[in-house]
């Protein structure tokens, strides 16, 4: 393979979400020469727009046994391979006075049958363990739910793929498939920044584009009946609960509250949306009202807790019936060999599924790719830890790197795990904080700019959490933009980025801008549009 051209690969993966990242990692670990292309940045679709729930599978135990079993198996795997992305919180399924307590019995039986530990606990004990829970609860079941940082998980998979030779091209979009007869030979892509057109070749192309996979498949001449189901969520400024809280009833709106880092997230709604809207998800006042009303039933404190932002994602469900809400469609994995299904050779789609089952999706896709390439290599993603998660408890990682870690060093280790050792954080200049809310230091920002394929401020936020805290970028956005300008020597682009970043933050803020969020918004408006005069630029 040494005389292969640099635009030839064993496999091309389309989509830089968690599914694409997991597939790329799996293929790269099996020794394949991998190219991953993503039209925006990593984790810009549903990957970055969900609860960050490490499902135990209990939610699906009654209605979808297959998904439930997949979830609990993957849950246990992620605790081992992605420990720096996972928070082992446990979860409650609570029964409120208006719910049917009889459902609890069925729920526990179904969990047990699916291999999910489900333990009925006394409501008083539930309140003692999770003081934020609605004190009116009449029943509680404890299950092994947790939380997972999807950005970190996606980035770690990408990084491992890269460490095993994969090439990753962000801001590259497939514009057509290069076909010979009924065989896909590769893809023609456009660099969305330079507008340059490039061709890449591989015997197999994997469509892992989430809801946009519908469009990608159509480009190749295949039809996947997808069902774009919008889910809206709210992030609160405090970690109100320390244990995931769910409702013990059939899955419905706004019935999961997940703690993550210093915040918590309530969601979701479920509404079918047209494909045209998938690129521009916004949250309506009605959705906010519904999320708050239902959320306060799980934890009454939510009614008075500051909301940081509202956001929405689109689940890449595959249509199975005429259910208008999408709630009853299976969350199961759909791995399509378009050769047998549609007569298109060299083309595979991996879709359906969920964040929790991304690794298994990657495994199934990689198995199919290997079969097509006649390669007999076993999947190793379930046993090899992701970069950052090798050995040791997360809390101890910073002490192994620095004998007396400072607050910014601890924060970096919390995000990057053992990979924090490669981030320059030894001198005071590197430790100077860019983002106070999230304790992101200059060293982390510089490292991300130099090594993590950051094009703009929003990309930087996905990799470092800059601007994700209480002030939503009020101060740090300008600092980080200045650092980008210096690192890249292009102030003009950095200034345009800063405007883009502020608009992106505002998009999530205005649906919930009242109280302190409105105060923050007024302040940010005056600083950027008056003191700095950014609106004039």
């Amino acid at each position, binding site marked *: 393979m040494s005389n292969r051209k640099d635009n030839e690969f064993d496999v091309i993966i389309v989509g830089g979400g968690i599914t694409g990242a997991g597939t790329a990692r799996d293929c790269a670990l099996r020794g394949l020469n991998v190219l991953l292309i993503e039209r925006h940045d990593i984790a810009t679709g549903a990957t970055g727009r969900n609860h960050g729930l490490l499902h135990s599978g209990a939610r699906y135990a009654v209605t979808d046994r297959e998904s439930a079993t997949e979830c609990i198996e993957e849950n246990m795997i992620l605790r081992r391979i992605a420990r720096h992305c996972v928070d082992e919180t446990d979860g409650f399924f609570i029964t409120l006075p208006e719910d049917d307590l009889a459902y609890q019995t069925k729920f526990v039986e179904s969990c047990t049958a699916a291999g999910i530990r489900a333990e009925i606990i006394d409501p008083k004990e539930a309140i003692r363990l999770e003081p934020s829970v609605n004190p009116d609860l009449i029943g509680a079941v404890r299950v092994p739910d947790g939380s997972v940082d999807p950005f970190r998980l996606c980035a770690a998979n990408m990084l491992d793929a890269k460490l095993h030779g994969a090439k990753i091209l962000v801001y590259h979009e497939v514009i057509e498939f290069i076909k010979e007869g009924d065989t896909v030979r590769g893809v023609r892509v456009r660099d969305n920044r330079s507008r340059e057109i490039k061709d890449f070749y591989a015997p197999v192309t994997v469509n892992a584009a989430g809801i946009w996979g519908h469009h990608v498949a159509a480009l190749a001449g295949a039809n996947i009946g997808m069902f774009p189901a919008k889910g809206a969520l709210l992030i609160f400024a405090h970690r109100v609960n320390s244990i995931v809280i769910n409702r013990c009833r059939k899955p419905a709106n706004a019935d999961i509250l997940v703690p993550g880092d210093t915040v918590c997230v309530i969601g979701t709604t479920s509404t079918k949306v047209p494909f045209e809207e998938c690129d521009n998800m916004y949250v309506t006042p009605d959705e906010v009202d519904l999320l708050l009303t239902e959320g306060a039933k799980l934890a009454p404190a939510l009614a008075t807790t500051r909301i940081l932002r509202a956001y929405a994602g689109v689940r890449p469900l595959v249509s199975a019936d005429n259910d208008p809400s999408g709630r009853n469609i299976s969350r199961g994995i759909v791995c399509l060999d378009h050769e047998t299904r549609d007569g298109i050779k060299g083309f595979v789609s991996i879709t359906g599924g969920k964040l929790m089952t991304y690794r298994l999706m990657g495994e199934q896709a990689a198995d199919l790719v290997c079969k097509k390439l006649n390669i007999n290599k076993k999947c190793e993603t379930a046993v090899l830890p992701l970069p950052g998660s090798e050995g040791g408890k997360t809390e101890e990682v910073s002490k192994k790197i620095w004998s007396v870690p400072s607050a910014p060093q601890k924060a970096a280790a919390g995000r990057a795990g053992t990979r924090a050792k490669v981030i320059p954080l030894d001198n005071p200049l590197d430790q100077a904080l860019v983002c106070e809310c999230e304790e992101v230091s200059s060293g982390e920002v510089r490292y991300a700019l130099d090594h993590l394929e950051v094009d703009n401020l929003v990309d930087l936020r996905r990799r470092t959490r800059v601007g994700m805290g209480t002030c939503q970028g009020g101060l740090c956005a300008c*600092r980080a*933009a200045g650092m980008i300008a210096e690192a890249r020597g292009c102030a003009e682009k950095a200034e345009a980025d800063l405007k883009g970043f502020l608009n992106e933050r505002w998009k999530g803020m205005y649906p919930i801008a*009242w109280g302190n969020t409105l105060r923050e918004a007024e302040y940010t408006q005056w600083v950027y549009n008056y*003191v700095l005069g950014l609106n*004039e630029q």
Partner: protein
Amino acid sequence: MEFDVMIIGGGLAGLTAGLALQEKGKRTAIVSAGQNALHFSSGAFGLLDREDPFGAVAELDEDHPYARIGADSLRTFAEKAKGLFARAGIELNGNPLGNGFRLTPQGALKRAWLTLPEVDLFPDEAAVKGHKVLIVNLLGYLDFNTSFLALGLEKKGCTCRVETLRLPEMERLRQNPSEMRSVNIARVMDNAWVKVAGEVKSLLKDEDWVILPQVFGLRDATVPSQIRETVPARVLFVGTMPPSVPGMRTQMQLKRAYEALGGTFLMGDEVLSAETGEARVRSVETRNIGRIGAKDFILATGSYFSKGIASDMNHVYEPLFAADVIQDEGRGSWYDPNFFNPQSFLSYGVATTPGFKVLKEGVPFENLYAAGSVLGGCRSLALGCGAGVALVTALSVAETI
């Protein structure tokens, strides 16, 4: 405790009203909860973002405070404002009857009316063209973006060189990851400025302008002019990310001048409730002092940031008197999805009579006046009239009382 006038709020409007009333011989007190808009000042005051601010009054909505005052009185108050500051020891730059421009930290020019002493006021856009500029920052200081400043100036035909100073005096600050902020640096610079001036002088080549961040003169207002005397080029001090060092110093200077005139400044205190009846305010209850009575009261509590107005999911309200608030019905109409477009919520505030008496359920309080950004109908960010409204309405209310 009894006063002639009790002023709620120690920002620009409250202090201006206090100074004007003390000069008239009234016995006044100001309750100040702490931070106010001077803490994120641009270093310049805006009257109205129009070439001819007085001529443009006729175009304003009838709710706008200037429309109520009228162009003629606006001129009088505008001139009075500059005089009042001068008597408080602050020589503002600019002609109170006209507009000029200030240089923003992005290197943009924004219309300004009067500026704080160290902030340059340019007569026109041409004054910023074609200069050779040395921009000097302090190592590790992220809140002064030299790249953006240089970009903006280069677009205006200037050539820029950026240098960074490493001062041993700042090493201690640098040891703490969150200490490199304007006010902390300014405290160091109160003593270290001589050294900075010397270093700047030695860095200077053929540049005719030097730009420094606004981190000088927190304690001693004369430091910026002393630096100017040392460096053989025109020295400009350009804004940083908040807090604003010139703004904070100005607030302290105004407070001292107010106290020198016999005013009572209740720092760090807060009005918790008010006793009202028969369309009059009888007294207010503060956290530290308790009941304070007065003949007249001025509501100068600012807008959202200073908590002069607040909001819940569906309403914007005035928390102290439940005064009427000018606002749009329904949260959906409060915002524009584009951050850089004018935002409706920024124009909300207290409704008053044309003489700034506060309305509650349509009925004015006989002895409660509103001044500054608590007032509704200003659109002060879009119109660039925030400081102007604070000064002018405070002077107008003081005259009425």
